[in-house]
């Protein structure tokens, strides 16, 4: 009995210090390297080389033209779709989307190289954020959790000089 008692007491006195040291080091490592992952995605832009582009001669194939102009500070000054102005307020991108829905219609999205094409022509100093908003507006909208695609072929016009 005496031996047993002393044996158990020794076991329960195992030193925790080194383990806790290591555990805290691990904890600090993970806290320091921790970074919240932001989900990112891409808009794809196909820019065929100039020689290929000049081969298109069918006038009915002309792309829609979206003109984004900027003021001196790089903010959005106006949106023009073909020749109609859509303003420059927050709702302008919604109006743009509504216009695109009218043009594209409710037809099922076409696969491959079919479907309408849009060309974005932006001022040099326009903030890039606005271009992405325009991309978002023309390429689709969210219906609940579903994404409805509108125009998949988006390209840039020739850059305007400036800067």
């Amino acid at each position: 009995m005496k031996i047993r008692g002393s044996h158990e007491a020794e076991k329960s006195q195992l030193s925790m210090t080194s383990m806790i040291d290591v555990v805290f080091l691990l904890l600090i490592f993970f806290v320091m390297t921790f970074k919240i992952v932001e989900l990112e995605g891409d808009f794809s832009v196909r820019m065929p080389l100039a020689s290929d582009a000049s081969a298109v001669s069918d006038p009915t194939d002309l792309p829609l033209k979206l003109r984004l102009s900027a003021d001196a500070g790089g903010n959005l000054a106006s949106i023009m779709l073909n020749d109609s102005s859509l303003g420059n307020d927050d709702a302008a991108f919604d109006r743009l989307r509504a216009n695109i829905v009218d043009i594209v219609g409710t037809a099922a999205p076409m696969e491959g190289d079919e479907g309408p094409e849009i060309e974005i022509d932006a001022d040099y100093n326009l903030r890039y954020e606005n271009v992405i908003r325009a991309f978002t507006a023309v390429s689709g909208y969210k219906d609940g959790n579903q994404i409805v695609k509108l125009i998949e072929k988006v390209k840039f016009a020739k850059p305007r000089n400036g800067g």
Partner: protein
Amino acid sequence: MRLKRKPVDLAEGDLTPMIDMTFQLIAFFMVLINFAQTEANDNVVLPNSQLVKPPETALTFPIILHVAKDGQIFLGGDDYTVDTLRVGLRRELAVIKAEGKEPGDANVIIRGHKDTATGKVQEIIQVAQEQQLTNFALRAKEDRS
């Protein structure tokens, strides 16, 4: 004797709950850690978009260009301007050609800062086109609001 024992008890206070918590914290951070952050660049704050989704399959032969607010371009650890970018792109293309692929197989991923000038991005696309690159992707942050 009793009085002497008390301080010994205090020093050996029960460590179990603390160790439990610490292990839980470690498990939490281990699960959430992501080492694949090499694509990010501190100079770039991406614009938001509701429509972008993380790609299901990684793009083939990605060339990732980070465009900072002032138009500075970061490619693989070096920084370039629009005028010097072709040097960096040629270096990337040499790697792609060495693997027996064409420039048309490569994907140029542009991670532009949300306040950078659009013209800078367009110039970058033009420079890349001069190097026979045709596939571009504009990266944006998923906006779930």
